[in-house]
């Protein structure tokens, strides 16, 4: 039986969809069978980020309404040897058409077919959020290193607790290493401490992600720090003990040494 994990956040636009794709792709590269479920009804975009938009025939609501079987709605990503699939969201429907109980039974069925069911959650804490969370065994909360983003993440963490979910893990996305180094950005430990949650990973801010998004490709096959960050997260989800990357360790420089001496 597989595991269903919802990728959520408080604030929108922090990188949930990007993380869902890249963690899923990294898990698939490691041999796991993965399905990505887009629950952003009316604003579907996981298919576009994956470059599979032309392959979508049926969607999540078609499955829930019994218009097709799950297998018919699943879109296979041909780059991952049959190990990465997408269940797309409906683009023209209403979030309220789904009920939490339906999501629970869908997730159960998918867990029987895949090792990992990654659920991409819509922004906000309304119906769409509640439905996305309903079928999940655990949650990952994505935040950016900004006050408003962490504050909203804290809100979501307290809602997840009220929904009796296990304590979520945190991904800090779009960390700007130079800014952390010069003291102009909170670091990942500050955020994990304030949110009182374990860190699942730190992802640097990297234009590679935007370029890959333009092409409809995941970034996990590359050698950049961002590719490594997603692969490390996948390994941690598979229970491996992978230490967190220290992205902003001070580099040695004569200038910095002089600066420290002068106060």
């Amino acid at each position, binding site marked *: 039986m597989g595991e269903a994990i919802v990728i959520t956040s408080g604030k929108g636009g922090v990188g949930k969809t990007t993380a869902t794709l890249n963690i899923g792709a990294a898990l698939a590269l490691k041999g796991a069978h993965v399905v990505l479920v887009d629950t952003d009804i009316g604003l579907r975009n996981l298919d576009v980020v994956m470059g599979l938009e032309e392959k979508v025939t049926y969607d999540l609501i078609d499955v829930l309404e019994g218009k097709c079987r799950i297998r018919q709605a699943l879109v296979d990503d041909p780059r991952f040897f049959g190990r990465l699939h997408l269940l797309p969201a409906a683009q023209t429907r209403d979030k309220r058409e789904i009920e939490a109980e339906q999501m629970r039974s869908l997730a159960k069925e998918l867990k029987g077919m895949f090792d990992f069911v990654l659920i991409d959650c819509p922004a906000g804490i309304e119906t769409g959020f509640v439905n996305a969370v309903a079928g999940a065994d655990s949650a990952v909360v994505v935040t950016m*290193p*900004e*006050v408003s983003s*962490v*504050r909203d993440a*804290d*809100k979501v963490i*307290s809602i997840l607790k009220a929904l009796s979910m296990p*304590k979520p893990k945190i991904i800090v996305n779009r960390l700007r290493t130079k*800014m*952390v180094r*010069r*003291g*102009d*950005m*909170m*670091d990942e430990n*500050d955020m994990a*401490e*304030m*949110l*009182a949650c374990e860190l699942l990973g730190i992802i640097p801010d990297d234009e590679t992600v935007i370029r890959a998004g333009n092409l409809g490709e995941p970034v996990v096959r590359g050698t950049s720090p961002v590719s490594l960050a997603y692969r490390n997260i996948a390994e941690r989800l598979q229970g491996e003990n992978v230490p967190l990357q220290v992205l902003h360790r001070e580099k040695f420089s004569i200038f910095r040494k002089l*600066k420290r001496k*002068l*106060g």
Partner: protein
Amino acid sequence: MSIFQSNKTGAAAKARLNTCLREDRTHLTNRELMLIRLDVLAALSEYVEMERESMKVSLVHGGQNEPNSLLISVPILVRKAK
């Protein structure tokens, strides 16, 4: 002051986040916090002289399963003579 010194906005972000989380988690408004400060100062001033302006109220985050604490600190100068 060092010629290299700049305003480190990361620390400011952390302090502001702490204030936001304190509000969200305790539901204490700024007015209520001010009243708490005044009550604590009044109670302590019976016994000690303090640096009143240096009083700090912050949220200490509990661990995985521990509750948060409200930490009120104020530097004490001397014990008041009876």
